[in-house]
């Protein structure tokens, strides 16, 4: 009986092997997850939480080690992957919209989105446009009307640098509302979303642009009034009260996705294995729980679909950045 089972197992394995040579790759030993930020940053979180799921679900043979490599907003890690780890099959690198933004604006000198393989995005944090509770604006329309009259009349505070993702959200909304002279719109850059929120709450800056998760506490306490969520549909749960920009006639969707790329030198086998494995991570309950805990919304793209999405995003951001004179 036992002999028979093992025999049929061997036969089955042999069959699978010959049938799908493409997925023959299996990692051995430890996996390295490169977080292009300091401990505590968003990419660090992506690596550590996905690493934990991979280990817990036995999707990898050994441990997943997170290595922090901060610098140039992910540029140091990108360069490291492109040049020194080109053929490393056991390496994944955390990425997000911040990565595509910098690629689009040529902030990683001599490097572009084709130099790595984009594996998967496993969730997103959606953008919001909000004002303080005592603000004269109570709808997105009113804010846009003011901007149309004078693009310099409303100042925005956000947690990214000028031309960064938080700034781009404002520009995307303004562009969708046919406001010309995007360069006139005032954007004030802070070290993080929280700092920007206090300036809005203190009445020093008119509006806040950021992500849902970082402003959750202030939305719940009523200190921030959300004029628009930049998502396709209304968000789940208690956030369902917040209006989307779309339903107010502004067709802007701004998901800040979190995902991974792998080195370009790996074979299709290896790339396929990573895509498949990350797809599996997305389906687990453990990951779903991590997503809810951290304010991540459903957003899943992988393989070719994700690669196309990344390239599209890079092109969009590039043209928008050109419009405000950030890149030539």
């Amino acid at each position, binding site marked *: 009986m036992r002999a028979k089972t093992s025999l049929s197992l061997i036969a089955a394995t042999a069959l699978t092997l010959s049938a799908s040579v493409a997925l023959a790759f299996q990692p051995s030993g430890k996996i390295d997850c490169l977080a292009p930020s300091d401990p505590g940053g968003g990419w660090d979180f992506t690596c550590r939480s996905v690493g934990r799921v991979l280990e817990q679900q036995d999707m990898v043979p050994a441990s997943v080690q997170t290595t922090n490599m901060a*610098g140039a907003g992910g540029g140091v890690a990108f360069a490291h992957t492109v040049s020194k780890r080109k053929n490393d099959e056991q390496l994944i690198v955390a990425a997000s919209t911040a990565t595509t933004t910098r690629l689009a604006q040529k902030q990683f000198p001599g490097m572009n989105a084709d130099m790595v393989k984009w594996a998967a995005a496993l969730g997103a944090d959606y953008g919001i446009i909000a004002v303080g509770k005592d603000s004269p604006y109570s709808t997105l329309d009113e804010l846009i009307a003011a901007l149309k009259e004078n693009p310099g009349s409303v100042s925005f505070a956000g947690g990214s640098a000028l031309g960064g993702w938080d700034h781009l959200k404002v520009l995307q909304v303004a562009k969708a509302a046919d406001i010309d002279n995007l360069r006139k719109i005032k954007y004030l850059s802070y070290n993080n979303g929280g700092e920007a929120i206090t300036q809005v709450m203190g009445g020093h800056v008119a509006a806040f642009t950021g992500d849902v998760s970082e402003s959750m506490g202030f939305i719940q306490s009523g200190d921030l009034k959300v004029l628009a969520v930049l998502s396709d549909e209304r968000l789940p749960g208690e956030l369902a009260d917040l209006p989307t920009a779309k339903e107010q006639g502004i067709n802007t969707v701004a998901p800040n996705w979190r995902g991974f790329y792998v080195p370009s030198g790996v074979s299709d086998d290896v790339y396929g294995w990573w895509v498949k494995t990350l797809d599996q991570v997305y389906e687990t309950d453990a990951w779903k729980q991590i997503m809810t805990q951290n304010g991540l919304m459903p957003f899943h793209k992988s393989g070719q679909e994700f690669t196309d999405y990344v390239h599209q995003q890079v092109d969009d951001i590039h043209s928008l950045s050109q419009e405000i004179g950030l890149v030539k």
Partner: protein
Amino acid sequence: MDTLNYLMQGFGVALTPMNLLLALIGCFLGTLIGALPGLGPANGVAILIPLAFTLGLPPESALIMLTAVYSGAMYGGRISSILLNIPGDEPAMMTCLDGYPMAQQGKAAEALAISAVASFIGSLVACIGLILLAPALAKFALTFGPADYFALFVLAFATLGGITGKNPMKTLLAAALGLMMSTIGIDISTGNQRYTFDILELYEGIDFIIAIVGLFAISELLFFIERRISDGDETIKVNKLKIKWKEILAIIPTSLRGGVVGFVAGVLPGAGASLGSFLSYTIEKRMLGSKNRFGEGDPKGVAAPESGNNGAANGALVPMLTLGIPGSGTTAVLLAMLVSLNITPGPLMFQQHAEIVWGVIAALLVGNFLLLLLNIPMVGIFVKLLSVPPKYLMPIVTLVAIVGIYSISHSAFDLYFMIFFGVLGYILRKIEIPLVPVILGLLLGPEMEKNLRHAMMLSDGDWAVLWSSWLSIAIWAIAIIGLITPYIVGPMLRRRMRVKTADEVTED
């Protein structure tokens, strides 16, 4: 009375044997991490987060352990400042100024004991502030607009002359050097790169920790090598602790003031512990007037920055707990930790997670007492370090610093950069340009620039905005007084001192 009630509940959480043990472990590890140059509190906490996770601790226990590490690191930072003239972290920089001279005079044990007491008092003052005023202070922090922040940073630079005042031009030069270096990296107001020459590692500016370890630790090594060649071995006398109650009582007023100044600096997001210890030192120097011997090993010069930085460390928890804004690098790491424990700090934190907030506050108080108890007996052990011949000690310290820096970024570039800073520090010290203003320029420059440009952007380029609120006017007034007084009072003092030293010289 609600507050007291909550606090008692908090003690209930913090004083369980398990949490008490974790706090003790945290305090010990923190002190150790703080003492190692290159590994500041932020990295210490970051390194220990995985430990908290692997132990599978409940949120309040994890947070209690990490806040203990945080306060421990603030205590520990001073050890290498005093013994080796190498700050363990940024805020401990000011402690070098008087702590190291004290050690050179054979009073290392006293300096360590005084700094432990001052840290304790500063921390206690700030803890009380945190308990009584947290929600109100969060509102106060909101009133600071870009113009007010700018005025605050100007105030910091205006009082710079107070620290190394022998040659104001050299101080100014050093600060300018620091400010210039702070412009390296992405200009957040235009998105352009400045002075980066397509070197990716420079895109986010210069990491303070690299600059500090380079300027202080590596240059100290170079000085040591030079002294070895010319003078042979030099040893600092190791002494037994023989501090009198009178000496401790003498630093209490200084420590109380330092705690308050530090706490206020800590509450403001972005200002942080370095500003706290710096302002506390310079203000204390002003307050004491002609009575001080700051810079020559004055115990009060050790007490002021130490109470200031511990006060600021606790003050920084105010914006973190009430607004979810990290006031410093370390609180940023603690914040990330909270988020991954499914707690989003923010305006509702005190209502939604009262047990955690008050547990942490109680843990801070408990940790503070533990640290004092832990540190006084440990003085003897730390001082023993000095009896290790410098020819062994210095290479070990350098090695630890290099490993520390490398473990943060895994980048060899940072190591070259650190060595570059070491050589720069050596040259600057040779031509008697003080190092502290360089670091301050580097540390405060980006914030100062950001706030100036934000103010200008909001006002469409009208400079009058910089003194348009009562808050900014008040800060400007203090800054101007701080800038002018040394030139009026200074010469008077110096004349008097010259008479006095002339007397002493003739007596000799």
